Protein backbone atom coordinates (compact mmCIF):
# COMPACT_ATOMS: atom_id res chain seq x y z
CA UNK A 1 0.00 0.00 0.00
CA UNK A 2 2.77 2.41 1.02
CA UNK A 3 4.68 1.51 -2.13
CA UNK A 4 1.60 2.32 -4.23
CA UNK A 5 1.23 5.73 -2.53
CA UNK A 6 4.89 6.49 -3.24
CA UNK A 7 4.45 5.54 -6.87
CA UNK A 8 1.38 7.81 -7.15
CA UNK A 9 3.30 10.69 -5.58
CA UNK A 10 6.06 10.14 -8.16
CA UNK A 11 3.46 10.26 -10.94
CA UNK A 12 2.04 13.50 -9.52
CA UNK A 13 5.48 15.08 -9.44
CA UNK A 14 6.18 13.91 -12.99
CA UNK A 15 2.89 15.40 -14.21
CA UNK A 16 3.71 18.70 -12.48
CA UNK A 17 7.16 18.71 -14.08
CA UNK A 18 5.71 18.06 -17.51
CA UNK A 19 3.26 20.95 -17.05
CA UNK A 20 5.93 23.34 -15.83
CA UNK A 21 8.48 22.46 -18.51
CA UNK A 22 5.97 22.40 -21.34
CA UNK A 23 4.62 25.83 -20.42
CA UNK A 24 8.17 27.19 -20.19
CA UNK A 25 9.11 25.66 -23.56
CA UNK A 26 6.00 26.89 -25.29
CA UNK A 27 6.54 30.35 -23.86
CA UNK A 28 10.28 30.58 -24.54
CA UNK A 29 10.15 28.97 -28.00
CA UNK A 30 7.97 31.60 -29.66
CA UNK A 31 9.79 34.37 -27.78
CA UNK A 32 13.19 33.18 -29.06
CA UNK A 33 11.72 32.76 -32.54
CA UNK A 34 10.44 36.35 -32.47
CA UNK A 35 13.87 37.62 -31.39
CA UNK A 36 15.63 35.69 -34.14
CA UNK A 37 13.11 36.81 -36.76
CA UNK A 38 13.92 40.42 -35.88
CA UNK A 39 17.63 39.64 -36.28
CA UNK A 40 16.90 38.05 -39.67
CA UNK A 41 14.91 41.12 -40.72
CA UNK A 42 17.69 43.43 -39.56
CA UNK A 43 20.21 41.45 -41.58
CA UNK A 44 18.06 41.19 -44.70
CA UNK A 45 16.69 44.71 -44.68
CA UNK A 46 18.15 48.08 -45.53
CA UNK A 47 20.55 49.73 -43.09
CA UNK A 48 21.55 53.24 -43.95
CA UNK A 49 21.67 55.21 -40.70
CA UNK A 50 20.33 52.24 -38.72
CA UNK A 51 17.13 54.00 -37.64
CA UNK A 52 14.86 51.63 -39.56
CA UNK A 53 16.58 48.44 -38.41
CA UNK A 54 16.48 49.69 -34.80
CA UNK A 55 12.75 50.35 -35.05
CA UNK A 56 11.43 46.79 -34.89
CA UNK A 57 9.19 45.88 -32.00
CA UNK A 58 7.76 42.66 -30.61
CA UNK A 59 4.36 42.62 -28.95
CA UNK A 60 2.50 39.80 -27.23
CA UNK A 61 -1.21 39.19 -27.38
CA UNK A 62 -1.56 40.34 -23.77
CA UNK A 63 -0.02 43.72 -24.54
CA UNK A 64 3.60 43.30 -23.43
CA UNK A 65 5.99 45.00 -25.81
CA UNK A 66 9.69 45.48 -26.34
CA UNK A 67 11.00 47.92 -28.92
CA UNK A 68 14.21 48.94 -30.55
CA UNK A 69 15.60 52.36 -29.78
CA UNK A 70 14.77 53.87 -33.17
CA UNK A 71 18.20 55.47 -33.05
CA UNK A 72 20.94 55.47 -35.67
CA UNK A 73 23.70 52.92 -35.33
CA UNK A 74 24.31 49.27 -35.95
CA UNK A 75 21.21 47.08 -35.49
CA UNK A 76 20.70 45.98 -31.89
CA UNK A 77 18.96 42.82 -30.70
CA UNK A 78 15.57 43.16 -29.04
CA UNK A 79 14.67 40.77 -26.20
CA UNK A 80 11.15 39.44 -26.72
CA UNK A 81 8.71 39.72 -23.84
CA UNK A 82 7.67 36.36 -22.42
CA UNK A 83 3.98 35.53 -22.56
CA UNK A 84 2.27 35.73 -19.23
CA UNK A 85 -0.14 33.00 -18.14
CA UNK A 86 -2.91 35.33 -19.32
CA UNK A 87 -1.34 35.36 -22.79
CA UNK A 88 -2.01 31.66 -23.19
CA UNK A 89 -5.73 32.31 -22.73
CA UNK A 90 -5.85 33.81 -26.23
CA UNK A 91 -6.13 31.23 -28.98
CA UNK A 92 -4.93 33.58 -31.71
CA UNK A 93 -1.65 35.32 -32.54
CA UNK A 94 0.84 35.27 -29.69
CA UNK A 95 3.56 37.57 -31.02
CA UNK A 96 3.36 40.48 -33.42
CA UNK A 97 6.48 41.92 -35.02
CA UNK A 98 6.21 45.35 -36.56
CA UNK A 99 8.33 48.34 -37.41
CA UNK A 100 7.46 51.79 -36.06
CA UNK A 101 9.72 53.77 -38.38
CA UNK A 102 7.68 56.46 -40.20
CA UNK A 103 9.00 55.15 -43.53
CA UNK A 104 8.64 51.43 -42.73
CA UNK A 105 6.45 50.72 -45.76
CA UNK A 106 8.88 52.41 -48.15
CA UNK A 107 11.81 50.53 -46.61
CA UNK A 108 9.97 47.23 -47.11
CA UNK A 109 9.18 48.05 -50.76
CA UNK A 110 5.44 47.98 -50.06
CA UNK A 111 4.78 51.49 -51.36
CA UNK A 112 6.62 54.01 -53.48
CA UNK A 113 8.58 56.77 -51.81
CA UNK A 114 10.65 59.80 -52.52
CA UNK A 115 14.30 59.18 -51.80
CA UNK A 116 17.07 61.68 -51.32
CA UNK A 117 20.62 60.40 -51.01
CA UNK A 118 21.87 61.91 -47.75
CA UNK A 119 25.43 61.78 -49.05
CA UNK A 120 26.60 59.74 -46.08
CA UNK A 121 28.05 56.25 -46.23
CA UNK A 122 25.47 53.63 -45.25
CA UNK A 123 26.26 51.21 -42.43
CA UNK A 124 25.66 48.29 -44.78
CA UNK A 125 27.10 47.44 -48.18
CA UNK A 126 25.09 48.90 -51.00
CA UNK A 127 24.31 48.44 -54.67
CA UNK A 128 24.38 51.34 -57.02
CA UNK A 129 22.05 51.89 -59.97
CA UNK A 130 19.25 53.98 -61.37
CA UNK A 131 15.91 53.84 -59.58
CA UNK A 132 13.30 53.00 -62.20
CA UNK A 133 10.10 53.42 -60.21
CA UNK A 134 9.40 54.96 -56.84
CA UNK A 135 10.24 51.71 -55.07
CA UNK A 136 13.31 51.83 -52.85
CA UNK A 137 15.06 48.74 -54.17
CA UNK A 138 14.02 49.04 -57.80
CA UNK A 139 17.47 49.80 -59.17
CA UNK A 140 18.87 48.81 -62.54
CA UNK A 141 22.39 49.20 -63.85
CA UNK A 142 25.67 47.46 -63.28
CA UNK A 143 26.83 49.30 -60.20
CA UNK A 144 26.54 52.60 -62.01
CA UNK A 145 23.94 55.28 -61.51
CA UNK A 146 22.95 57.97 -59.07
CA UNK A 147 20.98 55.83 -56.59
CA UNK A 148 22.05 53.46 -53.85
CA UNK A 149 20.27 50.64 -52.07
CA UNK A 150 21.36 48.59 -49.07
CA UNK A 151 18.88 45.73 -49.58
CA UNK A 152 17.48 44.04 -52.68
CA UNK A 153 13.99 44.83 -53.95
CA UNK A 154 11.31 42.87 -52.05
CA UNK A 155 13.67 41.58 -49.37
CA UNK A 156 10.80 41.70 -46.85
CA UNK A 157 8.26 39.83 -48.98
CA UNK A 158 10.91 37.24 -49.82
CA UNK A 159 11.62 36.65 -46.12
CA UNK A 160 7.93 36.42 -45.32
CA UNK A 161 6.82 34.35 -48.30
CA UNK A 162 9.94 32.43 -49.26
CA UNK A 163 9.92 30.04 -46.31
CA UNK A 164 12.68 31.61 -44.19
CA UNK A 165 10.31 32.75 -41.47
CA UNK A 166 8.73 29.28 -41.24
CA UNK A 167 12.16 27.71 -40.94
CA UNK A 168 13.18 30.15 -38.20
CA UNK A 169 10.08 29.37 -36.14
CA UNK A 170 10.60 25.63 -36.60
CA UNK A 171 14.27 25.80 -35.56
CA UNK A 172 13.55 27.80 -32.41
CA UNK A 173 10.61 25.63 -31.33
CA UNK A 174 12.62 22.45 -31.97
CA UNK A 175 15.48 23.89 -29.94
CA UNK A 176 13.27 24.70 -26.96
CA UNK A 177 11.46 21.35 -27.08
CA UNK A 178 14.83 19.60 -27.34
CA UNK A 179 15.83 21.13 -24.00
CA UNK A 180 13.03 19.36 -22.16
CA UNK A 181 14.44 16.82 -19.72
CA UNK A 182 12.03 14.96 -17.46
Amino acid at each position, binding site marked *: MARNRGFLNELDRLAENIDRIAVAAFSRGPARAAEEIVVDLQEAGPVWSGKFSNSWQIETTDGRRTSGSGSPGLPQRIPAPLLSGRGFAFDDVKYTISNFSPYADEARDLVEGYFIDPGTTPLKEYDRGTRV*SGYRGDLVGDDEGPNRSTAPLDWY*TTYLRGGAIDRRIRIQLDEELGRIRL
Partner: protein
Amino acid sequence: MNYQAIRAAVENPLLSAFGALVPAVPVYFDNITAVPPNTTTEYVRVNVTFGITNEPTLTSSVDNARGAIVIRVFTEKGRGPARNQTLLTAAVNALETLNSTAKTTSGVFFRVGEINGPTFSATEEAPHFVGRIDTSYVATVLS
Protein backbone atom coordinates in the same frame (compact mmCIF):
# COMPACT_ATOMS: atom_id res chain seq x y z
CA MET B 1 18.65 22.81 -59.07
CA ASN B 2 17.45 24.58 -62.16
CA TYR B 3 16.56 28.11 -61.14
CA GLN B 4 16.15 29.20 -64.71
CA ALA B 5 13.47 26.59 -65.34
CA ILE B 6 11.61 27.70 -62.22
CA ARG B 7 11.79 31.32 -63.27
CA ALA B 8 10.58 30.44 -66.75
CA ALA B 9 7.65 28.49 -65.32
CA VAL B 10 6.18 31.63 -63.81
CA GLU B 11 7.47 34.26 -66.22
CA ASN B 12 6.21 32.67 -69.44
CA PRO B 13 2.51 32.54 -68.48
CA LEU B 14 2.64 36.13 -67.26
CA LEU B 15 4.37 37.27 -70.43
CA SER B 16 1.72 35.49 -72.52
CA ALA B 17 -1.15 36.92 -70.47
CA PHE B 18 -0.04 40.52 -70.85
CA GLY B 19 1.05 39.97 -74.45
CA ALA B 20 -2.46 38.78 -75.30
CA LEU B 21 -4.08 42.00 -74.10
CA VAL B 22 -5.00 44.65 -76.65
CA PRO B 23 -2.88 46.66 -76.65
CA ALA B 24 -0.18 44.37 -75.29
CA VAL B 25 1.34 45.57 -72.03
CA PRO B 26 5.12 45.40 -71.62
CA VAL B 27 6.34 43.20 -68.77
CA TYR B 28 9.71 43.73 -67.17
CA PHE B 29 11.41 41.02 -65.17
CA ASP B 30 14.45 41.10 -62.92
CA ASN B 31 17.61 42.67 -64.25
CA ILE B 32 15.91 44.11 -67.31
CA THR B 33 17.08 47.60 -68.03
CA ALA B 34 14.50 48.44 -70.65
CA VAL B 35 12.07 50.35 -68.42
CA PRO B 36 12.78 53.99 -69.04
CA PRO B 37 13.01 55.76 -65.67
CA ASN B 38 9.99 57.99 -64.99
CA THR B 39 8.13 56.71 -68.01
CA THR B 40 4.43 57.60 -68.04
CA THR B 41 3.25 54.68 -70.15
CA GLU B 42 1.77 51.65 -68.42
CA TYR B 43 3.84 48.59 -67.72
CA VAL B 44 4.14 45.59 -65.42
CA ARG B 45 7.08 44.72 -63.22
CA VAL B 46 7.49 41.12 -62.05
CA ASN B 47 9.98 40.22 -59.35
CA VAL B 48 10.61 36.51 -58.78
CA THR B 49 12.74 35.87 -55.71
CA PHE B 50 14.14 32.70 -54.18
CA GLY B 51 13.85 31.93 -50.49
CA ILE B 52 14.72 28.42 -49.40
CA THR B 53 16.11 25.76 -51.71
CA ASN B 54 16.02 22.03 -51.06
CA GLU B 55 14.40 21.62 -47.72
CA PRO B 56 14.89 18.08 -46.43
CA THR B 57 12.45 15.80 -48.21
CA LEU B 58 11.67 12.10 -48.18
CA THR B 59 13.64 11.55 -51.34
CA SER B 60 16.76 13.21 -52.64
CA SER B 61 15.68 12.91 -56.25
CA VAL B 62 13.72 16.14 -56.36
CA ASP B 63 14.78 19.75 -56.20
CA ASN B 64 12.50 22.10 -54.31
CA ALA B 65 12.58 25.84 -54.14
CA ARG B 66 10.36 28.27 -52.30
CA GLY B 67 10.15 31.95 -52.94
CA ALA B 68 8.02 34.96 -53.63
CA ILE B 69 6.45 36.56 -56.67
CA VAL B 70 5.74 40.27 -56.55
CA ILE B 71 3.79 41.85 -59.38
CA ARG B 72 3.46 45.61 -59.71
CA VAL B 73 1.20 47.16 -62.29
CA PHE B 74 1.96 50.74 -63.26
CA THR B 75 -0.87 52.66 -64.94
CA GLU B 76 -1.66 56.26 -65.61
CA LYS B 77 -2.21 58.34 -62.49
CA GLY B 78 -5.42 60.30 -62.02
CA ARG B 79 -7.62 58.02 -64.12
CA GLY B 80 -9.10 55.79 -61.41
CA PRO B 81 -8.23 52.20 -60.58
CA ALA B 82 -10.16 50.41 -63.35
CA ARG B 83 -7.33 49.92 -65.84
CA ASN B 84 -4.95 48.91 -63.09
CA GLN B 85 -7.39 46.34 -61.78
CA THR B 86 -7.94 44.94 -65.26
CA LEU B 87 -4.22 44.29 -65.57
CA LEU B 88 -4.05 42.83 -62.06
CA THR B 89 -6.86 40.47 -62.96
CA ALA B 90 -4.80 39.21 -65.89
CA ALA B 91 -1.90 38.60 -63.52
CA VAL B 92 -4.03 36.77 -60.94
CA ASN B 93 -5.60 34.62 -63.66
CA ALA B 94 -2.14 33.66 -64.94
CA LEU B 95 -1.05 32.69 -61.42
CA GLU B 96 -4.19 30.66 -60.87
CA THR B 97 -3.58 28.82 -64.14
CA LEU B 98 -0.27 27.65 -62.68
CA ASN B 99 -2.16 26.01 -59.84
CA SER B 100 -4.39 24.05 -62.16
CA THR B 101 -1.52 22.62 -64.21
CA ALA B 102 -1.23 18.87 -63.78
CA LYS B 103 1.92 17.27 -62.41
CA THR B 104 3.98 15.51 -65.05
CA THR B 105 7.11 13.36 -64.88
CA SER B 106 9.48 16.06 -66.04
CA GLY B 107 9.76 19.82 -66.09
CA VAL B 108 8.74 22.02 -63.19
CA PHE B 109 5.78 21.46 -60.90
CA PHE B 110 4.73 24.90 -59.72
CA ARG B 111 2.21 25.96 -57.10
CA VAL B 112 1.52 29.42 -55.78
CA GLY B 113 0.06 30.19 -52.37
CA GLU B 114 -2.56 32.70 -51.37
CA ILE B 115 -2.35 35.99 -53.17
CA ASN B 116 -1.82 39.02 -50.98
CA GLY B 117 -3.44 42.22 -52.21
CA PRO B 118 -3.97 44.08 -54.38
CA THR B 119 -2.80 47.18 -52.61
CA PHE B 120 -2.75 50.49 -54.45
CA SER B 121 -0.58 53.52 -54.05
CA ALA B 122 0.32 56.71 -55.81
CA THR B 123 2.76 59.37 -54.75
CA GLU B 124 3.02 62.98 -55.77
CA GLU B 125 6.46 62.50 -57.26
CA ALA B 126 5.95 59.28 -59.23
CA PRO B 127 4.03 59.41 -62.53
CA HIS B 128 2.03 56.21 -61.99
CA PHE B 129 -0.79 54.67 -60.03
CA VAL B 130 0.58 51.35 -58.78
CA GLY B 131 -1.24 48.15 -57.94
CA ARG B 132 0.72 45.45 -56.14
CA ILE B 133 0.11 41.79 -55.40
CA ASP B 134 2.43 39.18 -53.97
CA THR B 135 2.33 35.48 -53.36
CA SER B 136 4.51 32.61 -52.25
CA TYR B 137 5.41 29.67 -54.45
CA VAL B 138 6.79 26.17 -54.19
CA ALA B 139 8.49 24.78 -57.27
CA THR B 140 9.75 21.25 -57.80
CA VAL B 141 12.12 20.41 -60.62
CA LEU B 142 11.08 16.93 -61.69
CA SER B 143 13.50 15.92 -64.41
